[in-house]
């Protein structure tokens, strides 16, 4: 049943349906607009839950894929060796596998919650939700695309809505933050595009023999599978310096070029992740964007960086990753400790959370650097878990700001008295963030550290120090807000409304669910890393 539907395309583009309705709604009808938008985000959620249920049913079977030719032109290139003709074939190629399934769920869930949290938005609802739905299409597309150019298109599609969401609906310095966001990510995208062009031009082709069986026909495409298998295949054109007839192979990708592309990818996705020196833009976004947008940003957009790093950096260049595992791990540790120490001294709660995101993304890097099954699972679970946790935390930030008009730590205190529900949720979210077992943060953290410990003892030991520091800064800020004496100004604030409580409880439920029963994530991820692990063990065996 499900297999007959173009379910992936439906998931990706279903928010557009809401967008279409929104276009015809008068912009004063804020209630209608909100209901429409929230419904529109529910569509992909329901569809993706359906997909998830079905996906687990056919575990290990053929993954879902949808293909259609997007751009196809024949190229007028000189024949070299036994290759006589070329075509460029860019596919509309969507697919889901163990790596993207958890992130797809994360995206659709956080999408709904952020739409609900947008009730605090005070102006121009219509355009807000239009950008919001476009953003959601882009995010879902990024995780479902199976073609590098399609990926790139969706990736760029997230930038523009985000730029406006920050720039129009943000706080005081919103324009500056939006500019910084766009410039940084634009640079990242440019670097990524460069790497993709290199990849497609060399490794991204499929060779078909022409009818006469002597000559070959090459069709270029950006398919992950084609690029990946070509890079891994020792007998593929891309790994042969010279063709059969002794002519220089124009498709040959030298070892140095492998490294160049790997580094380009590392920088491109490192900006998004963000890795240490490239992190300043996201601080601004965390501090200036409206909380519901930060939920999306911190909850999903940062994950695109890690996803890209895994999908392209690690899966396509396992041997480079293997050689640089130590570097990645050190970068991860720097992220963890740097983020933690800086979170310790921030005076503004949103910045504490921003630095804590940096710290938590460091754990993802550790998981990736471990390059074994445990660590990679840990990295993915940490991604999803941090997505939920930071979405929840910013949801709370939004509610606090709506009531108190401040997120400065010195202005807040004793909220547990007037807002017991919100404080309880905040405390639990903080606990999840510092990796309390039974909540989702622990699973990701534990598996990442466990995976890394096998190869890098000392680095793991230092990273564990970060675990302590995490506790320190989380408690400092969370207790500062909820415990202590109540300032007079805050004595009368009311606890959360139902529309705010529902997403909080939902997110909390997911956090607890993953923490108690991690199989919800690990099950679809099974067989997700098989080929990569096989390549890595070959590399280690060599």
């Amino acid at each position, binding site marked *: 049943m499900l297999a007959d539907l173009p379910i992936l395309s439906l998931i990706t583009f279903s928010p557009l349906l809401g967008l279409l309705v929104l276009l015809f709604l008068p912009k004063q009808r804020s209630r209608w607009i909100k209901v429409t938008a929230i419904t529109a985000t529910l569509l992909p959620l329901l569809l993706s839950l359906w997909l998830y249920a079905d996906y687990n049913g056919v575990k290990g079977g053929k993954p879902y894929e949808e293909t259609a030719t997007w751009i196809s032109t024949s190229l007028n290139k000189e024949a070299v060796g036994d290759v006589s003709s070329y075509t460029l074939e860019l596919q509309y190629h969507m697919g889901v596998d163990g790596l993207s399934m958890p992130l797809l769920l994360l995206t659709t869930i956080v999408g709904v919650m952020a739409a609900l949290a947008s009730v605090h938005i005070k102006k121009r609802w219509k355009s807000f939700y239009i950008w919001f739905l476009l953003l959601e299409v882009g995010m879902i597309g990024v995780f479902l695309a199976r073609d590098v150019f399609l990926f790139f298109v969706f990736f760029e599609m997230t930038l523009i809505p985000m730029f406006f969401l920050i720039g129009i609906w943000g706080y005081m310095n919103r324009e500056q933050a939006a500019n910084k966001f766009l410039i940084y990510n634009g640079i990242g995208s440019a670097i990524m595009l460069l790497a993709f062009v290199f990849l497609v031009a060399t490794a991204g082709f499929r060779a078909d023999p022409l009818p006469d069986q002597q000559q070959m026909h090459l069709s270029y495409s950006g398919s992950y599978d084609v690029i990946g298998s070509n890079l891994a295949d020792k007998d593929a054109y891309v790994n042969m310096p010279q063709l059969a007839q002794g002519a220089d192979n124009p498709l040959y990708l030298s070892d140095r070029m492998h490294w160049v592309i790997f580094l380009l990818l590392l920088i491109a996705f490192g900006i998004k992740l963000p890795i240490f020196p490239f992190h300043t*833009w996201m601080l601004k976004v965390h501090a200036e964007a409206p909380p519901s947008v930060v939920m999306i940003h911190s909850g999903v957009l940062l994950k695109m960086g890690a996803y890209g790093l895994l999908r392209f950096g690690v899966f396509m260049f396992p041997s480079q990753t293997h050689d640089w595992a130590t570097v990645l791990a050190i970068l991860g540790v720097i992220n963890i400790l740097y983020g933690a*120490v800086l979170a310790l001294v921030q005076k503004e709660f949103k910045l504490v959370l921003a630095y804590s995101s940096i710290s938590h993304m460091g754990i993802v890097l550790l998981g990736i650097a471990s390059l074994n099954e445990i660590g990679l699972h840990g990295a993915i679970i940490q991604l999803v878990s941090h997505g939920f946790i930071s979405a929840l935390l910013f949801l709370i930030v939004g509610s606090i700001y709506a009531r108190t008009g401040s997120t400065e730590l010195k202005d807040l205190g004793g909220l547990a008295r007037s807002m017991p529900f919100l404080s309880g949720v905040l405390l639990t979210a903080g606990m999840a963030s510092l990796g309390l077992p039974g909540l989702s943060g622990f699973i990701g953290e534990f598996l990442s550290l466990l995976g890394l410990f096998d190869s890098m003892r000392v680095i793991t030991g230092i990273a564990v120090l970060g675990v302590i520091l995490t506790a320190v800064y989380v408690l400092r800020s969370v207790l500062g807000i909820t415990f202590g004496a109540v300032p007079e100004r805050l004595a009368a604030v009311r606890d959360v409304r139902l529309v705010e409580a529902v997403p909080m409880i939902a997110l909390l439920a997911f956090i607890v669910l993953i923490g108690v029963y991690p199989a919800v994530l690990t099950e679809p991820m*099974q067989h997700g890393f098989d080929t990569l692990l096989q390549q890595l063990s070959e590399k280690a065996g060599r």
Partner: protein
Amino acid sequence: MDTTFSQAAWLIPLFPLAAFLLLLAFGRSSRMIGVLLGSVSSLAGFVLSLLVLIEHMTKGQHDYQYAVKWIDTGSIVFKAGFEVTNLTALMLVVVTAVSFLVNVYSAGYMKGDERISVFYSYVALFTFSMLGLVLADNMLTLYVFWELVGVCSFLLVGFWFSKPEARAAAKKAFIVTRIGDAGLLLGILLLYWYMPDHALDFVRIGNAFEGGTGVIAASVTTWIAILIFIGAVGKSGQFPLHVWLPDAMEGPTPISALIHAATMVAAGVYLVARTFDIFQASQTAMDIVAYIGGFTAIFAATIGVAQNDIKRILAYSTVSQLGYMMMALGLNSMTGGIFHLFTHAFFKALLFLGAGSVIHAVHTQNIQEMGGLGSKMKITAWTFGIGALALSGIPPFSGFWSKDMILNIAYHEKPALFVIGVVAAFFTAFYMARLFFLVFMGKPKGERHAHESPPSMTGPLIVLAVLAVVAGFVQTPWNDTLGNWLTDGAEQENGGGGLVMVISAAIGLLGLYMGWLVFVKGMISRDFVSSRAPWLVRLLERKYYIDELYEAAIVRPLRALGGLLNGIDDYVVDGLVRAAGGAAFLIGRGGTRMQNGQVQTYGLITAFALVILIAAVALRRFW
């Protein structure tokens, strides 16, 4: 062998969990619901634990273990499960018993608090976690509950969250134990990668390490043991991570009894006992455990002498007694450690609940402001006295037997630790005498009218007092019941330590007598020491300046580092970014300035560019 009840042991933690969930959902509807649910669930747990224990009393009873998949990544599986051994059965009973009594007691103590349901839900959550910790069949499951227990402790220490001291204490409790937890986590990581088949369950850990079969290299064993011990140090308040425990007394007093005296702080001792095979495989680790334990015992006992807060005195005595337990374990006697844990759980819970009764009556915690309460609060005074005698190690109270056993072992194994133990025992008796005489004897101070506490509070006191008297008889020099049962006859305790018994009893009595001389008879002036060596008293009052040391050595540098890095982040990292942006802007600015429409400027630029080009071409041959 019949294992009906052991198979159902997993239900024991579920009672309080159910109570917690129900309280979370309906807690606000009624004030009594908390008392009811909390007491009933812990009573149910207690009954089932007792049945399990009785079942395990039969000779040759097998351990029962059951586990399910928890984290499954395809080829690697982490399980979660429970295991009932003699040790866990004993701990189950101790935890549920104390928990039940504290639940009952709190009904009276917390009566006036508006958040009583929240209190009961936290206690239920704690009981759940502690029972889960006890029942866990592998290191990972244990770690999960270990952390949960820490959080519950944190929540309860910070229960009166409006008080800044409570907030600070809660934070400190969590962070300091977290340091220990990080050690434990590393220990688990190390264990995982070295264990055959990456097994983490205690049965296979025991098999791998038992008798030094050399499955795992000696140095690795030592590392694992030390890392696990760091976890235990954090939780059980051993030096140098003891600093959180006295501060944790900011929580409600029943909590101090349940968590910070009887059960949770004993978790560290329990952990070492549970992984005893690892420690036994490494003599170095054992020595570290023994010496840290011994040092903590005397260190905390001396601080206890100079404190004035009734709960803090008891807190330091807890730290000190936990030191004894660790020392016993380090001296290769699991029986000694667990026996003392067992007796200590009862008499220390008794002391704390008694102290709670006193605080409830006089609304102060400073013993200098109390006095003459003995006549007004007879039950409290008598039961507290029994607890104090048990703690001081006076025969035939339970504390005597367990302490005597530890001292006896130390006497045979490491005489130096024996001396330390004896001196610490003297201080223990002395500060308990000081506490008792100042609070219950002498003239009443303060205006408040003190009265005896309600039956819901005195009832648990009486039960605990009975236990504090009789609990010691499960293991005496003539009767090796506990040791035989606990270790399957592996540990033969040296009997006939007549000399040690006499010394131990005498030193306890001497301490009490000194206390009596100073604080009742006044034969020795109270400021005998403070007038001669004020620095010594101040040193003890300030707890050897450990907190100040940490503040100066860790907290401040860390904060300074944070400030420094913050500056770097703002000005260097972000500055570089701004500089890059600024450079682009400047280049653009320069570009527009060059395009000024003056042909001569264009010509000049062209000429310069030409010169550079020529120079480049000309110089190229040189590299």
